């Protein structure tokens, strides 16, 4: 008598497509984890979610003071709007790299006890980041109203640029999360990368003040181009299409290879924790 097999477990590789289907089936977990993290992070605080804007707001105040009063940078748009477009893009990116990169390590107990596609953990970080990002965007709108910056039709492109921001951040986050399980050193390296990275990224300065011979960097710097696109949307500054195409292709390749690497290593994650 042949019995119907409900499920089979064997060693070996699953294809990326099969894996992504599995993730899709449990997509509710992405929301579950994101909701959990938000609740936990802001539980028992008086300001709650408002805390998520304190950090970009502090950045805004410090950069505005320094680059308007101490070392004035001359740019055509109000500096506060200029720097805040940089800050929101950079913060979303770094929170994805930092949080998605460490999410497997921070959920070891769960990973050892319950089976689910592990990719939902870094993906859930994209969602928590998006909530915090949205609050910052509201703050940006307020800044634009205060400083009298006009809103433009270009805002329709915002979702696409946010998507580019997410993919750029996740490409780093997914690679790092899979790698940190094997190489714990990376856990310590991530904050350094983020700390120094802001100097290589036009967050508080415009690319126009960077000497021309260094401009090639931006062909390999997707975050710089994400920020450039935010500025294009909100302040109407020019963008370099060549830089965008090259750097975004690079980010996409990193993202895809990160997914492949993650899926390939997923079966060893529990072994190494």
């Amino acid at each position, binding site marked *: *008598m042949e*019995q*119907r*097999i*409900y*499920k*089979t*477990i*064997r*060693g*070996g590789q699953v294809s990326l497509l099969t894996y992504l289907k599995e993730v899709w089936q*449990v997509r*509710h*977990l992405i929301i*579950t984890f994101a909701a*959990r993290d938000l*609740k*936990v992070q802001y*539980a*028992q605080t008086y300001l709650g979610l408002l805390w998520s804007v304190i950090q970009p707001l502090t950045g805004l105040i410090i950069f505005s003071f320094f680059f308007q009063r101490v070392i004035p940078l001359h740019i055509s748009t109000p500096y506060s709007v200029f720097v805040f477009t940089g800050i929101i893009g950079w913060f979303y990116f770094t929170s994805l790299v930092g949080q998605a990169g460490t999410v497997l390590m921070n959920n070891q*107990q*769960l*990973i*050892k*006890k*319950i*089976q*689910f596609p592990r990719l939902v953990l870094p993906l859930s970080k994209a969602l928590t980041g998006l909530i915090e990002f949205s609050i910052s965007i509201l703050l940006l709108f307020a800044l634009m109203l205060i400083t009298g910056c006009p809103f433009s039709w270009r805002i329709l492109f915002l979702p696409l640029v946010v998507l580019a921001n997410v993919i750029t951040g996740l490409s780093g986050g997914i690679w790092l999360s899979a790698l940190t399980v*094997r*190489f*714990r*050193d*990376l856990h310590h390296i991530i904050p350094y990368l983020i700390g120094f990275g802001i100097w290589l990224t036009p967050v508080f300065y415009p690319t126009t003040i960077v000497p021309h011979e260094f401009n090639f960097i931006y062909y390999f710097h997707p975050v710089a181009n994400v920020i450039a696109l935010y500025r294009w949307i909100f302040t109407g500054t020019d963008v370099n299409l060549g830089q965008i195409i090259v750097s975004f292709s690079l980010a996409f390749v990193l993202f895809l290879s990160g997914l492949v690497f993650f899926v390939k290593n997923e*079966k*060893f994650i*529990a*072994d190494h924790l």
Partner: protein
Amino acid sequence: MSELALEIKNVSKSFQIHENRADSLKENIARVFSSKKNTATLFHALDNVSVKVKKGESLGIIGRNGAGKSTLLRILSGIMQPDTGEINFYGKPVSILDIGAGFHPELSGRENIFLSASLYNFTKAKIEEKYQEIVDFSGVENFIEEPVKNYSAGMYLRLAFSIITCLEADIYLIDEVINVGDANFQMKCKAKIEELIAQGKTLLIASHNLNEISTLCNRIVLMENGKILDIGTSDAIQKYFTIAIPEYFSFDEGKAFHLKEKNEIHSGVEQISILNYGLKDYEATFTGISNQKPISLFVEVEITEPVKISFGMQFCDITGVVAFTASTLARGSVSEIIEKGKYQITFLIPPHLLNEKMYAVNFTLVGEKKVLMKIDKLITLKISDGTETINAVVLPGVVKPIINSVIENIA
């Protein structure tokens, strides 16, 4: 042939153990440039394990720590992948490797119910349907909006367990969870498991406590070093268990008792040294020491200075449960002063008291109101009913006194 619930076919799993685990990048980079070969050795956590579990069966997996029980359950639940081999499930499995898995201390009881249940793949509608049942079962309704970090350990366990009881599946994979919590909670766990068995569900329960699962499981797998040593009934396994688990006993097969090595023991009390110990009068067959006859155990000590002391022997079964304690201390009195000299202390165990199983005898020295020293497993005994066959039915229980019983026709 009855229907199968799951089939484990030739499953192996090994881990690399590095002499110096190259957890850091530096070591991995250094390794590329160094001439030293990778010093990793393979540890076979599971070695060609095959088991068939029938539908409606409850199978126990027993073995000491590191025997491979947990690795097997992790593979069955999909948390780890086997290196080779295959597992077929003929029904929906659910694995309960931990009580309160996925709980977050900062979240409220209600939020944790939703979180934990969705990790077990409940849909939101399903959780809402089961929510009241879970809360009622847990008995923490008044605190359901409080963060679980403020719960007492007992409340926490009850809430976590009530989520598990609402899981619906055909095959339950359970790891050690029945050993947590207080006695009351354990009873509740066992009752729930018995209920599942009665419903005809298939169970796989891993434990290192043979007593616990011998009442729940009709077949038991004994694992050691990643291999299956034996599969059989609880009684059959009990015979091998003692051999396989030297932490509990070290025995040569066929020997009726074992004495701890003399160089391993110290009285722990300056004025007293232990000279000798063993069994005096007993009757043994191939199967062990007969419980049909009295058994006397003795310890000889030398006392160099007068000391206030009394002596005791604790009889424990292999799971560590104390069956009873024999003491030179008369009830209610205190230890008496014993003068300098050599003494022999004898304990006479009456017939028809010990059950047909293994006992470890711990020797205790008790001073003025406190235990000065406890020597674990000074003597270990294999007790039998005095017959030459092993296959007699062993009744559960740490002791086996003679209980008279009658069956009367009252019609």
